[in-house]
């Protein structure tokens, strides 16, 4: 069935560099796309979301880009810090009324 998936299982980033986490989705009927951060031993934490009628949204140090033509979502983290080390999930929400998560990308920040 249709699902949300991620391109890379692990991303190693040097502290201070920008991180880009990618996500492919296949359900064109999704209304919202959401990024979550999950630290070890904790539940997922909301980072930022974007509605399907937008192509870019910015938050504090984070930017989400949505390309509906190729069904691609990305999360950019500026000036990556050690505290950004975590697993990042994209999820989608549509008219079916529930969230569907991808498999996640492990981000490792190196000094």
């Amino acid at each position, binding site marked *: 069935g249709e699902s*949300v998936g991620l391109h890379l299982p692990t991303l190693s980033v040097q502290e201070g560099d920008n991180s880009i986490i990618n996500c492919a989705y296949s359900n064109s009927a999704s*209304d*919202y796309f959401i990024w979550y951060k999950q630290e070890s*031993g*904790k*539940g*997922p*934490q*909301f980072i930022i*979301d974007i509605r399907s009628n937008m192509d870019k949204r910015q938050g504090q140090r984070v930017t989400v880009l949505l390309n509906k033509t190729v069904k691609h979502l990305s999360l950019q983290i500026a000036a990556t810090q050690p505290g950004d080390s975590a697993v990042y*999930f994209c*999820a989608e*929400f549509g008219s079916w*009324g*529930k*969230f*569907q*998560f*991808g*498999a*996640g990308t492990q981000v490792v920040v190196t000094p």
Partner: protein
Amino acid sequence: EAGVAQSPRYKIIEKRQSVAFWCNPISGHATLYWYQQILGQGPKLLIQFQNNGVVDDSQLPKDRFSAERLKGVDSTLKIQPAKLEDSAVYLCASSLLAGGYNEQFFGPGTRLTVL
């Protein structure tokens, strides 16, 4: 504002035993979700309540899993009998509104190990 509370945090049981997890959502939140998160995977929705009614339990293995949300507040998820493949983190989440997209808040999860 207090977050979503879950207990226990960890549980180890033998296969074929029973186990129950408890969730207390954020006060006033209408929607409550139970997710199963197998190691290395994203959360998978098991059941979704709006107030005390079930709106989606399509991925709940109903032969062994059950859940209830009495009085539209706290919820319990039960597994009876457990299988090895039930080893996972069970996450509870809640969101303010009933229906439609709104931010969901997750608890810390219960890590279940079935031996």
